């Protein structure tokens, strides 16, 4: 069959989806972030059934599917569950490479939170390493109220 599209140069139309978002954190995350900002304390929530303490905190326990009840202070020390060091400047990154990320399980918490690991040469980061939260100087009720986690001296 004759290819009627043979000589055609494909045109590419460029655009982007730019929808502004405002995510309501909800009362649980709001309490966590406000306490982090104002008191430099890290809070978790406790499940009344399985007694797990979650940090980041949850309004409901995903395992038991009930509302969590108590606030518990956790951290600011914890250990590195796993980590990576990113060397390519991937588009989503907010910092210049190398960027080290870790899953940090805080003392007193059953789960782990994602955050940066800094204050150490990236090659020296290890699984199980003890780290502590470094709080940001600038006041912000967000995950950035913690600047990063650094090794415990």
């Amino acid at each position, binding site marked *: 069959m004759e290819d009627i599209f043979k000589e055609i140069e494909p045109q590419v139309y460029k655009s982007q989806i730019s929808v502004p978002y405002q995510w309501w954190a909800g009362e649980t995350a709001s309490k966590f972030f406000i306490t982090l900002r104002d008191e430099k304390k890290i809070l978790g929530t406790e499940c009344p059934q399985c007694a797990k303490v979650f940090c980041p905190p949850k309004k409901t326990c995903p395992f038991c599917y009930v509302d969590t009840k108590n606030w518990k202070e956790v951290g600011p020390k914890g250990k590195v569950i796993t980590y990576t060091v990113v060397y390519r400047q991937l588009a989503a990154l907010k910092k210049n490479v190398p960027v080290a*990320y870790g899953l940090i399980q805080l003392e007193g918490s059953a789960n782990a939170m994602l955050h940066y690991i800094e204050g150490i040469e990236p090659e020296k980061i290890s699984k199980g390493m003890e780290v502590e939260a470094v709080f940001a100087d600038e006041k912000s009720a967000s995950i950035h109220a913690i600047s990063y986690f650094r090794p415990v001296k």
Partner: protein
Amino acid sequence: MEAAIIGVGMTTIEKSKVGETYADLAWEAVNKALNDAGLGIDDIDNVITTSSDFWDGRTISCMAVGDASGVRYKNCSAVEGDGTFGAAYALARSLSGDYKTTLVTAHSKGSESISSIITNAAFDPIYERGLGLDMISACAMQARAYMHATGTTPEQLALVSCKNHKNAKDNPYAQLPMDITVKDVLSSEMIADPLHKLDCSPVSDGCCAIIIANADFVKKIKAKPVWIKGVAFCSDAYFMGDRDLSKAKALEEAAKKAYSMAGITNPQNEINVAEIYDAFTYQELMWIEGLGLAEYGKAGLMLEKGIFNRDGKLPVNPSGGLLSGHPVIAAGLYRIAEVVLQLRGEAGGRQVNAKRGVAHGVNGLCGQSHCVWVLDKEK
């Protein structure tokens, strides 16, 4: 189960299909599947398209392929996620008694967007997204957790890449057929430690279509059916910190259920071919174990022994897998189509000797949600 796959159609998987729209891709795959089944579009009584609004840069992304998939005068629906999930809903419709023949499509053009930003949007906007993670950095953390827990080595990961890129040389649909060595993989760019560039699947464009029919319809046609014996899917917890990343618990559960539906008690002996969602090298090994095709932590050793090679006892990704071409969303449906070709003995240069096979797809970060298909030559 009383249903079979009676036709498959794939476009080639390429880095950039700049000359073709989503509709063009769907049109090609759908017509190939119809020809394969020896059917016309009027023989199809309902359609499921699979797409992602994020990957396509379009709200209601299914709209783009409706015409090309022949939905105009039919009942239809749309699944968002991997094509194996789209096919699972299609199977439900074929088994419900309301329909006889369900056409399933899945498409994606990674070339049209930036995968790092798209997958960053899978992170929780309140607790995580602002940190700048994406699929590669998240999976690098999982790779490390898995390697640490099992003692799997970077060389073993690299061997997955060598095997799959080599397999792709006999797959006319594959994007990256290559002869590479373990050394090539280990000396390729370190993107996110421990994942090198050649540990990662590429960004790809492609569309796949399959036709699922109930048993009554299969009796009436000439096409060679491949029977669906078991299908199951299962999700793990969402937050990476809520899971043991070194284990694929949700996959174990899905596999267990799919095998039990298929009457399989010893998958290592009873499965002859597997097409697995190897978005990264470590994932092929982890998912092999999650699927019960190797003991936990032993897939790397079995790989070294050649068991998963095309001429091994249990060939894994004889097509070259996702490492040789990864159109997100469509990738799992390609796995199903590949197993269908294998079981029909129509896989050309990549053919293995198989009576029963498993195909596998994934949704979400670090293999949160898995879908497992057990397919058989015989009813």
